[in-house]
């Protein structure tokens, strides 16, 4: 067997990463994704409640104002969640990956007039730079560096939940947990919501899958596993039957989408995590 000992590494300057992250967070916070706007417009066309319609119109109008005036769509510009996919043939020069990302976050929140929403859990003292960021890194084959910036608001994160079900709970148990979580959340997470669900793995992996599920274009069904596609459709229907409606003021549109990701789990477990996303579903990505 021939062992390749010399791989040509692609060099990426840390400053380039910082610059990209800065731009992504400002953009994500001020320009709502086209998929979200499209989903909101579709929601408006099927909403039957007059109040619900007015709420959806205001949400769409607000996205337009934010984009034109380069203002945050929502005052809660979130925890800075970052997903990185890094090719193993990359060599970062002039700095370190995490520090480069955090510098980009710091600059975005400072120079972009984004709210600094991070504090010490005990003293509640603001860290004043929106750091630390929450960074997930995957090392993959290749020599590309993909960065996804996802500002995540506190209101929708607060009503998210994870539970270790037992295998006997099965699919019905999973559905019940999702429905209970959404029903308990009610008006709090700024509906219409997007529901990210992670099934399987371990406790933390279920949570990461639930969050990753929120990165899918709104309403795109799981194309890998048709069982999941079916459950997504069922849950979407059941959630919209709850009547919570836009801003929780009643109506037909409570969820814009349900996205589920799944992986195998321990023979003793059935982990499930539900990550709720408000209608200001923000994420922007770039590949260096």
């Amino acid at each position: 067997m021939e062992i390749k000992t010399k791989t040509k590494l692609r060099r990426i300057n840390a400053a380039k990463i910082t610059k990209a992250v800065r731009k992504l967070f400002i953009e994500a916070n001020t320009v709502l994704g086209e998929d979200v706007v499209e989903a909101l417009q579709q929601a408006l066309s099927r909403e039957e409640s007059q109040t619900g319609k007015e709420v959806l119109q205001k949400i769409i109008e607000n996205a337009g104002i934010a984009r034109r005036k380069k203002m945050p769509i929502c005052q809660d510009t979130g925890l800075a969640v970052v997903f990185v996919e890094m090719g193993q043939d990359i060599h970062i020069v002039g700095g370190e990956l995490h520090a480069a990302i955090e510098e980009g976050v710091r600059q975005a929140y400072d120079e972009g007039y984004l709210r600094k929403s991070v504090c010490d859990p005990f003293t509640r003292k603001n860290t004043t730079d929106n750091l630390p960021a929450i960074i997930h890194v995957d090392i993959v084959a290749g020599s590309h560096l993909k960065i996804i910036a996802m500002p995540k608001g506190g209101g929708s994160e607060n009503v998210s939940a994870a539970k270790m079900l037992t295998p006997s709970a099965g699919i019905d148990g999973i559905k019940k947990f999702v429905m209970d979580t959404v029903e308990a959340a009610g008006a709090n997470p700024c509906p219409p919501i997007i529901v990210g669900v992670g099934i399987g793995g371990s406790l933390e992996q279920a949570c990461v899958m639930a969050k990753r599920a929120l990165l899918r274009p709104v309403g795109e069904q799981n194309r890998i596993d048709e069982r999941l596609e079916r459950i997504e459709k069922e849950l979407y229907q059941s959630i919209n039957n709850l009547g919570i409606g836009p801003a929780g003021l009643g109506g037909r549109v409570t969820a814009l989408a349900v996205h589920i990701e799944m992986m195998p789990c321990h023979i003793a477990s059935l982990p499930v995590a539900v990550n709720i996303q408000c209608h200001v579903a923000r994420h922007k990505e770039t590949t260096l």
Partner: protein
Amino acid sequence: MEARKIKTPLTEEVVTSLHAGDMVMLSGEVYTARDVAHRRLYEALLKGEKLPFDLQGAVIFYAGPAPTPPGKVIGSIGPTTSYRMDFFTPKLIENGLRGMIGKGNRSPEVVEAIKQHRAVYLGAIGGIAALMSQCVKKAELIAYEDLGPEAIRKLTIVDFPLVVINDFQGNDLYISERRKWRIGDH
């Protein structure tokens, strides 16, 4: 429904004419306060200290705005979820607070205090902060500057679009509307 124009400070007369589901346009002065500011207000009341603003007829807006860019009155601003303030709220209502602006449901204790002392909980739409900032004509930081976005600001607002969620008669719009639109049981 045509929105009704009301002004702060809120009087008992105005509050008792409001019913869950009424659309209102609120103008006047309101005070931003959220998590830590509420703890401080609460502790000040327990110690008998003077509050940074007069609670009589006052309206608190559960909000922490985005930073104000140069030349602007305020950055994006909108409601945060209200239930986190529930523990402190009855004490504030007992001491004269007449209105609250936020999003999401309140605890039975807050609903009871609203009934007993004739206050009102007004719902704002979350996540339309660029639009709502246009209703803010003046913003002044008046207390707890060290809290940054959580500091107390006195805002002068004009025609803030709100809806009555909990009224003095104990009605709750979130509950009644959800019941109306719900299909079956899950």
